[in-house]
């Protein structure tokens, strides 16, 4: 009876919110968890429950899975438009119930914040848990990837089938002895190396004998295929593999447990190649026919990416969002900007908005990021705005950027005035997700104006 009352209370709260023009799952979910802390486990679940977690890609993989399964004619419960914290998950499950508590969905696709594993997994007990990857995230919140792996492992049920990234030895370590595991990977790519570099490499020694690992291929951070020349340890073999990625043709090969299929490439960013093979692996495990798995990638697409470029005259304005306080995310953004050909200038506004005036940002995370990408000779000027502009400027200088090329300005938006745009092949506008509206958009508009384009 307590469960039913909780369901009603949460549904009524959601209804009241909708009547007042507000949406969202967090508040009703919080009410539900307050009334019944075990509500995630107490409600009836759809016949199949798939949870998706990881540092990057969990939203994309969840959304793609939900779309693909809906196209299979299944009724899918998902938190696509809700929160991935415990409250959001609770409300997603409640939303999928009738007022009498019967499930209306065939399958649940639950995106799960990895830090919330202990609040979600014991009740959810998913049939399948996908972990896309575990790389460094917020120092304050996530500490380090091995900690997150421990958090998830300590909460996952032995009955859960784990679908894991074989190219990430930390994500691949999740679970206990009894968990069934399926691995996915992306085979060696043309740009891969065999020697790790960069500030944040979290797997360097053999988990068995502590000796240095060698790599069949190394991609970024600790992502790649490692082995130990000392004791013979090897990364797990992946049953599901992506290979022959052809960005120009928009295709790749999906090796589905030995059955090779040419498929549409949903996006040529390597992170999305991993996402695509992860989705294929889960769909195959859910017994979706392989022809339809391949066909699904013709229809589904990842959500809006964190970068956009627009051509104004002879200059490309590259707008790139990063995740504030997360060095690894910034490394990928810097790498992307540096890869644009020709003379470039950069506007860098990546202060953490929430700590501008009420705290003093711990900029230690900047030393987990590979600012070295910005030391390229082709990047002729970097204008840094914001409260922590001198910290950013010092970080750039330590990374090898000529201090003569670094300009600091107090006001973030005025960086768009200070940056050199004449004769540049590309001008990058780097900002964080949190200051996208208050800084990123005005900077973009001003850059467009200065280059003679029309503001949108």
């Amino acid at each position: 009876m307590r469960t039913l009352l909780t369901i009603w209370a949460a549904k009524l709260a959601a209804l009241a919110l909708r009547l007042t023009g507000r949406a969202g799952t967090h508040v009703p979910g919080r009410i539900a968890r307050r009334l019944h802390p075990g509500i995630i486990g107490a409600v009836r679940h759809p016949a199949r429950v798939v949870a998706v977690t990881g540092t990057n890609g969990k939203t994309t993989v969840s959304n793609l899975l939900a779309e693909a399964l809906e196209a299979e004619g299944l009724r899918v419960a998902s938190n696509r438009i809700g929160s991935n914290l415990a409250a959001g998950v609770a409300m997603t499950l409640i939303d999928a119930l009738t007022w009498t508590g019967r499930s209306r969905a065939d399958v649940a696709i639950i995106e799960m914040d990895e830090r919330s594993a202990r609040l979600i997994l014991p009740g959810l007990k998913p049939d399948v848990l996908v972990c896309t990857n575990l790389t460094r995230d917020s120092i304050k919140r996530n500490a380090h990837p091995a900690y997150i792996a421990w958090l998830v492992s300590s909460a996952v049920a032995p009955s859960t089938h784990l679908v894991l990234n074989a190219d990430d030895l930390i994500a691949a370590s999740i679970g206990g002895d009894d968990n069934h595991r399926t691995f996915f990977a992306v085979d060696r790519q043309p740009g891969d190396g065999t020697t790790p570099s960069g500030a944040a490499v979290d797997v360097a020694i053999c988990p068995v004998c502590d000796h240095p690992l060698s790599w069949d291929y190394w991609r970024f951070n600790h992502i790649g295929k490692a082995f130990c020349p000392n004791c013979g340890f090897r990364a797990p073999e992946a049953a599901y593999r992506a290979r022959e990625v052809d960005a120009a043709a928009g295709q790749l090969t999906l090796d589905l447990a030995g059955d090779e299929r040419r498929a549409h490439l949903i996006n040529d960013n390597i992170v999305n190649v991993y996402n695509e093979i992860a989705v294929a692996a889960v769909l195959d495990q859910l017994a979706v026919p392989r022809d339809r798995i391949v066909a699904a990638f013709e229809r589904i697409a990842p959500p809006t990416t964190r970068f956009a470029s627009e051509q104004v005259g002879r200059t490309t304005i590259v707008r790139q969002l990063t995740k504030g306080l997360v060095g690894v995310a910034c490394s990928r953004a810097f790498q992307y900007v540096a890869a644009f050909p020709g003379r470039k200038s950069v506007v860098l506004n990546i202060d953490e908005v929430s700590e501008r005036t009420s705290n003093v940002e711990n900029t230690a995370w900047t030393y987990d990021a590979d600012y070295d990408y910005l030391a390229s000779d082709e990047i002729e000027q970097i204008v840094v705005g914001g409260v922590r502009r001198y910290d950013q400027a010092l970080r750039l200088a330590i990374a090898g950027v000529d201090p003569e090329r670094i300009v600091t300005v107090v006001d973030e938006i005025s960086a768009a005035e200070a940056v050199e745009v004449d004769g540049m092949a590309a001008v990058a506008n780097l900002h964080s997700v949190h200051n996208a509206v208050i800084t990123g958009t005005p900077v973009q508009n001003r850059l467009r104006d200065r280059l003679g384009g029309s503001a949108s």
Partner: protein
Amino acid sequence: MSLTIEMLFPEIANLHGDNANIDYLAQCRPDARIVRTGLTDRPAFVDGPVDLLYLGPLTERGQLLAIQHLRPHVDRLVELIDGGTPALFTHNALEVLGTRIRNDEMGYDEAGLGVLELESTLSMLGRYSGKVMGVVPEAGTEHPLVGYKSQFSMVTASDSMPGFLTAERGIGRNTHTAVEGVRRGGLLGTSLIGPVLVNNPHFTRALLAKLDPQTEPTLAHESLALAAYDQRLADFRDERRWHPVETVRR
């Protein structure tokens, strides 16, 4: 003189950007020899002198590995530290030198190297993050040291054990003391990240002078380092930016 700086186990002791402490020192002293000792290597300090020994932040498993691989050399480590060889242990590297590391959630209670009479208790579901500001003798009262804590562990030790600093703001070794970190012989041990040497150029200048008294210390990118310090210090002195959890509970 040329400096020899030994980084212990950088392949596992590299969290929170703290190895930039040594990257920055290396830019201040481009002639310095940086020895990166891997976990299965024989440490350089065992067979000869080094001018600075450094160990940075580790994972929980990394702490135990560091203890395991340093234990055969603990007598030499004590000899060097007590003989005045400078050593910098940051974040939870300091805990490796203690008597005990207790982690109930992960299910272990392990002996440390026993160099210092201190114990660490980890709370894996209660990470502490906050700011710390306090005077260190190397930089004087005009230039207090500024740093950050972001850690699972709290350290307990006798108040008679000299601290790295006494927190004017923020907490010390744990939430009940303002005494932060440890000093013993040449050892500077602190839980603070930042990295400390990047964020505190006055302290770094003094450390460089201590490492090589015959050479005038020079800071890399000095104007930017000083500007960043001045701005951070001004922000640290802004009362509105401090929160109740950043206070010692008496």
